[in-house]
């Protein structure tokens, strides 16, 4: 009965979103306040209904109600409680429901916090959000219903895919979706602006917090997913250029571009049409990502068993929204007044440079991801476009941007002085060179590209700090004055610096691990030792154990440095009994920002075992940098200018008695 309530709530949510998709837009067209107000109420109601529906599915998973097909297929009575929860979205149907839940959550947020928006804009935004919600609710109900019942309830479930039984998976999809789907708000704002044919700096100021919030969550989601793949898959890789990773990375690149172009629009009223187009494209890329992942057209870890009707349905949604949005853009963009001009060397110019590179890079990744599909459709030959392609193209394209990062915030608006900025960055360049040469000595050489990469990272970090240093006036004024100046700076200045520093840290981590990691594959018997990264590992032997729903064989290793034992690590191979599936649980030990990564292979007939050991120097910088970027996003989001400054609230409070037309 409860299950049917959840199903019913979802149907109701579809109905309410259909109302929300039509009435507020008509209201905005006619200036009918009552109709517009329906949007606010409906958005909250839809969120509540989807939340009920999601809650019911969670309930079914937690209570292991195997009469529900979705629970039977993806859960087991013996798995730990947390994986009963995460199993809700560890499958196609549940994850789509989570998608819609987050979409309606954002609509509800707009309804709740959108009081300072012009009424018509808010009504149109909520209307567009509802179109998306309706399309995806319909998709779930018609092709991927999680509430389908089984006639004879089986006694036991088929278990959640073992690689998904991990704390990382409990967090990764919700974060990723918060980012992915969060961009829907920017999309809706763009469409609403096109419908109204009005676009000004205030629009950019309203869109920026949503972009920032979505971008921060997406950064977290991607970083989390990368770390999860790193420690759970047992291959020691942290990024595979897998189509599904790309599907989340392309919106991230586009979203990063949007974040920067909205800045130009807010401050200088320039790049208006471009910003609207970017807002549309960013969410379109999220939709495309959803299509690629959910339709199963691409081979991937994330492609759950799929059927073609789903692919066709999402493709229809994709064509409807992207095609519709772009047509509207084509018809209306000319009506939007273009903004002011600026010199090529200026803050605006730097941000255009940023946008040019980020969108080109996004287009490159998109091309590499879709090319195999296109080629197969046209010529029938099958190819794989892998890391070599992406490293070559993406790496080279991003290089000029990384060099330019510290310049951007130092250039003045309208007309900048490149030479002057170069002089001010002199110290940062010097720091980069010093760090590069230090690495050269520490490593006794090393590939020139790696030294350059690390020097570049150090230069970016130092360059971002240069801005704070210059703005505080440290060195010219007393410490107390400098501190006061610093605390008086807008938060977004710190946000920018943090995010750019994070980028530098991530770059250092990527370069260090790529260039200096070492891998050893050895056959070890108990008592044998092997060296990796300046440490010595002794294999102590194997032990068998049992978990709640798996059996495991664990190897124990003692790690020592210069003869002194400093740590130990367990590395295991698990065998999940319900699915008869083995997984590798790598043993990882952290030393500073570096890690030793131990993976167990097959046992040999003579009692030995094949062990794969990696030394991963500075690998934690990759995700540490992402933490800095997220912190940057959060700090910028807390900037006062984003919260107030928009049209005064007082206007809305006045009772206005206008006859409805």
């Amino acid at each position: 009965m409860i299950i049917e309530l959840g199903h019913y709530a979802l149907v109701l949510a579809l109905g309410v979103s259909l109302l929300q998709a039509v009435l507020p837009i008509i209201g905005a067209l006619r200036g009918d306040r009552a109709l517009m107000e329906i949007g606010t109420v409906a958005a909250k109601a839809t969120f509540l209904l989807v939340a009920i529906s999601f809650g019911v599915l969670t309930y079914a998973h937690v209570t292991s109600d195997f009469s529900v097909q979705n629970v039977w297929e993806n859960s087991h009575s013996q798995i730990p409680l947390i994986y009963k929860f995460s199993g809700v979205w560890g499958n196609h149907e549940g994850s789509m429901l989570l998608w819609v839940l987050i979409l309606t959550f954002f609509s509800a947020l707009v309804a709740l916090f959108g009081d300072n928006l012009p009424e018509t804009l808010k009504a149109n935004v909520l209307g567009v959000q509802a179109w998306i919600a309706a399309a995806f609710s319909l998709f779930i109900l018609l092709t991927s219903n999680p509430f389908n019942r089984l006639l004879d309830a089986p006694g036991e479930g088929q278990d959640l895919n073992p690689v998904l039984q991990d704390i990382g998976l409990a967090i990764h999809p919700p974060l990723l979706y918060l980012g992915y789907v969060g961009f829907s708000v920017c999309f809706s704002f763009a469409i609403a602006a096109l419908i109204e044919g009005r676009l000004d700096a205030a629009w950019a100021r309203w869109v920026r917090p949503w972009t920032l919030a979505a971008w921060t969550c997406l950064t977290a989601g991607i970083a989390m997913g990368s770390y999860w793949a790193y420690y759970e898959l047992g291959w020691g890789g942290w990024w595979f250029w897998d189509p599904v990773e790309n599907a989340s990375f392309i919106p991230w690149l586009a979203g990063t571009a949007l974040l920067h172009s909205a800045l130009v629009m807010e401050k200088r009223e320039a790049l208006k049409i471009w910003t609207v187009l970017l807002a549309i494209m960013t969410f379109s890329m999220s939709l495309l990502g959803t299509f690629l992942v959910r339709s199963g057209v691409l081979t991937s870890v994330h492609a759950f068993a799929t059927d073609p009707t789903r692919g066709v349905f999402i493709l229809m949604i994709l064509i409807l929204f992207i095609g519709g949005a772009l047509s509207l853009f084509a018809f209306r963009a000319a009506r939007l007044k273009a903004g002011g001009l600026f010199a090529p060397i200026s803050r605006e110019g730097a941000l255009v440079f940023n946008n040019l590179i980020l969108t080109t890079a996004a287009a490159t990744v998109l091309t590499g991801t879709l090319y195999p599909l296109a080629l197969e459709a046209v010529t029938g030959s099958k190819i794989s476009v892998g890391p070599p392609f992406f490293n070559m193209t993406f790496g080279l394209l991003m290089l000029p941007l990384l060099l330019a990062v510290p310049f951007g915030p130092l250039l003045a608006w309208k007309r900048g002085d490149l030479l002057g900025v170069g002089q001010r960055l002199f110290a940062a360049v010097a720091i980069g060179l010093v760090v590069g040469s230090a690495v050269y000595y520490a490593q006794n050489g090393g590939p020139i590209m790696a030294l350059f990469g690390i020097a570049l990272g150090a230069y970016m970090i130092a360059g971002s700090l240069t801005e704070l240093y210059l703005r505080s006036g440290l060195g010219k004024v007393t410490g107390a004055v400098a501190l006061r100046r610093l605390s008086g700076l807008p938060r977004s200045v710190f946000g920018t610096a943090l995010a750019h520093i994070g980028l530098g840290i991530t770059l250092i981590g990527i370069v260090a691990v790529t260039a200096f990691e070492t891998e050893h594959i050895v056959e070890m018997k108990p008592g044998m030792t092997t060296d990796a990264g300046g440490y010595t590992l002794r294999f102590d032997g194997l032990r068998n154990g049992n978990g709640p729903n798996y059996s495991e064989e664990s190897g124990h290793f003692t790690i020592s440095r210069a003869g002194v034992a400093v740590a130990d690590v367990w590395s295991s191979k698990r065998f999940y009994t319900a699915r008869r599936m083995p997984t590798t649980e790598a043993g990882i030990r952290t030393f500073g920002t570096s890690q030793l990564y131990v993976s167990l292979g097959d046992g040999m007939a003579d009692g030995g075992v094949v062990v794969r050991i990696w030394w991963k120097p500075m690998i934690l910088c990759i995700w540490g940098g992402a933490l800095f970027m997220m912190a940057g996003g959060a700090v910028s989001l807390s900037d006062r200018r984003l919260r107030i400054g928009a049209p005064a609230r007082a206007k809305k409070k006045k009772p206005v008695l206008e006859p409805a037309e």
Partner: protein
Amino acid sequence: MTRKQKRLAIIGGGVTFIVAAVLLVMFAFSQAIAYFYVPGDLAKAHLAPGTRIRLGGLVENGSLKRGDGMTITFSVTDTLDRVPVTYTGILPDLFREGQGVVAEGSFRDGSPVFVADTVLAKHDETYMPKDVADRLKAQGVSLGGKENIQ
């Protein structure tokens, strides 16, 4: 600079960058991609030695042998033709005889043995690399009860 010159500088710079990016992508496509083959395709493919390809199929039953140390040999088959493969390293968790596999690597000069540097196995009980399933179907190989796999 006049308005016109400013606009030209920005547009010109942008176009130059995009053209460079397109050329780079085209170059990378000619260099850094791997074609996918099943054993039956190889006879007519005339690959130059050292060309990186992906070889897909099923791990032939009874073909898995461990050599000295970490080197492993097995055969990839589409049930009609077969190709011997050597690989050094740890096989993925899901690597098993009779199951789908994709090996990436190349043939060395004049040798019929495929030297793989990457081996991918199917991800769970109902999964087989789509490339493999498609090709095997095209070769007329029955996949038993696994027709709905992706």
